[in-house]
């Protein structure tokens, strides 16, 4: 009986497994495979020789890749930090009961619901040096002092970071809100009875109990931020002077613009491995915290 059942279960699982293999496992394996070859689309006469780890060794010595890695790290650190901070504030705000809370909760999610390409285009207009709203808000009519945000190396990266924070803070808020909602009301009542002021209630009741949710938000945001591509692609194309040439964009340019399939794949594989390591490390941490929270 059990065996027959197992067949049935397997049959039910099969479609999902096929989809996973086809759309997740196969491309990943293919990327690994490509990254061990020298493939140049524009020069098919060179064939596609197996070069073992040559692409990776070159990548280690590639100063452009190193620079891209560096600015990606800055991007990840700043966006994740501010998204969690703002997300926490937003979550605390929309967790409170007040008239119009439902509407506000929906509003908070709007930036996250807009496709990144669209919001990137919007931010490109907002940051425009001649008619951008941001310049107008800061300098008003004195157009001579308008700052070309996307034309300076430092502000171009900051602009992309700001656009990302605007867009994804609400996602962090959503995850943290979920954590807030499982905290029993009784705990707060008990704390009040003990005479705890608002800050103490946050510090000793809310904070320890939402830490697992925060860690999950941290995990998602770090991984996602590492794969940033569309914001830079739409807003700056990696410029000026490679100031926003994030790792994923560099890999894309190598692969699809220059036609180095092998080398570009090596970049992707490296991003994949970095993200995987972060994910495993976080999941272990989150898993431990969850256990601790249950004790």
């Amino acid at each position, binding site marked *: 009986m059990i065996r027959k059942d197992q067949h049935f279960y397997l049959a039910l699982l099969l479609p999902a497994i096929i989809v996973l293999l086809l759309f997740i496992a196969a491309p990943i394996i293919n990327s690994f495979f490509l990254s061990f070859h020298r493939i140049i689309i524009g020069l098919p006469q060179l064939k596609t020789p197996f070069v073992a780890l040559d692409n990776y060794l070159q990548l280690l010595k590639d100063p452009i890749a190193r620079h891209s890695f560096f600015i990606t790290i800055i991007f990840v650190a700043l966006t994740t930090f501010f998204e969690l901070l703002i997300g926490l504030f937003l979550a605390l705000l929309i967790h409170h009961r007040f008239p119009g809370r439902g509407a506000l909760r929906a509003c908070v999610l709007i930036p996250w619901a807009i496709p990144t390409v669209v919001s990137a285009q919007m931010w490109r207009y907002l940051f425009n040096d001649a008619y951008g709203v941001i310049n107008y808000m800061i300098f008003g009519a004195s157009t001579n002092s308008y700052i070309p945000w996307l034309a300076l190396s430092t502000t171009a990266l900051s602009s992309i970071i700001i656009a990302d924070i605007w867009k994804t803070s609400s996602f962090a808020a959503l995850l943290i809100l979920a954590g807030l909602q499982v905290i029993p009301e009784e705990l707060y009542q008990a704390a009040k009875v003990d005479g705890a002021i608002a800050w103490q209630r946050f510090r000793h009741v809310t904070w320890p109990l939402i830490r697992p949710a925060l860690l999950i938000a941290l995990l998602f945001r770090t991984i996602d931020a590492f794969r940033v591509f569309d914001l830079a692609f739409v807003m*700056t194309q990696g410029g000026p002077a490679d100031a926003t040439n994030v790792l994923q964009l560099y890999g894309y340019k190598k692969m699809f613009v220059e036609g180095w399939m092998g080398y570009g794949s090596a970049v992707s594989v490296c991003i994949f491995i970095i993200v995987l390591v972060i994910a495993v490390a976080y999941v272990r941490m989150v898993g431990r915290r969850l256990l601790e929270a249950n004790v």
Partner: protein
Amino acid sequence: MKTIKIMTIFLGIVVLSCTNVTSTWAEKPTNIVFLTWKPNQPEVWDTVIESFHQKNPDIHIKVQVGPHSSTQYHAIVAQRLKNMDKSVDVFFMDVIWPPEFANAGWALDLSSKFSAEEQNKFLSGPITANTYQGKIYGVPCYLGAGLFYYREDLLKKYHFKPPTLWKEMLKQGEVVLKGENEQGLHIYSGQFKQYEGLVCNMMEFIWSNGGAVIEQKTGKVLLDDPAVVKSLKFVRDKIIARAAPRGVINYEEPESLDLFIQGKTIFHRNWPYAWAVANDPKKSKIAGKVGVGIIPAFQGHNSASTLGGWQFGINNYSMHAREAWRFVQFMTSHETQKILALDAGLAPTRRSVYQDPDVQEKRPHLNAFLPAFKNTRPRPLSPVYPMISQELQRFFSQAITESGSDIPGMAAVSSARIEKFFALGAMIPK
């Protein structure tokens, strides 16, 4: 067992419905897929394609629109052709692509269809650009060349002739700025974002100083040549954030043209299409006040314009090459080029169109473009041009973005990288 039966039936339905779709195709006219980018005047292209349909009822053109940016459009076309995708028949090639597309075997060799006699009816610049190792791979659709636009009204007001030297342009600009005293008015705008257009703009500064980036014959990279370094320093110190707003560092053609047609710059570098936009009273505040000529030069050197423009190519793997060729022939005929010249302001590649009385009467400026068209020079011709271009873009952007940048030092690094790309091309067995 039951589940297996259900799944087989389900699969059967899927397979059957697929075959149904394919069998109904045959009776309809042949579909030719034309992969294009978003044109500036889509309505004109629609009309032209419609008139092709009327004359050729057995062919239906399916237009697929790709990105506006040349680099992004290249990524899509190259990706599909590399995969031997038969669902594209006709595509556009930027003037720098034919060597790559020919070498990779993506573009159909048109030598048997596009006779030497027919080729002679076209301007020679774009024909050279479409020829690779003695064979021709594309038919020029329209010509591009860097043109120098200026505000005729302002120059007249201050009794200036259009400048022929960069220095002269700056001097005239200073005078006009002082005289007009208008907030937000600048001397110059061009395209300086880190993309293909940056290469086109910088080439013109380099050539007009007697420099070159690559010696075409030997493949020697000359980025640290004093003539190159000097022209880059000029752009960094005198153009960016001086004559032009610093924002041009993130500008492609549309943004820089916007500045000009809003009356915010006196001089402007762009392709021929900008003429029609700048003189369209619905879009432009300076319609009728625009002059056009050749790009200025440095003292003692000659002006040069980057050769641009687009060609039709046919997919080497197309199932309908004959029908695709009929479409390309129609699109590059005298009549079509005339319509594109009259209604979209695109510069013809056929010599005869310049002599056409209608064109001469309604588009007299096309003859004003001719001096620049005769000054055109190609960007490096190489099957690895995309790699070279990416490195040039990086180098130029670094050179002009930071004041006080170490241009000779960066030039040495970039030269070494580009020489590596050339070495790859040289590995091709002859």
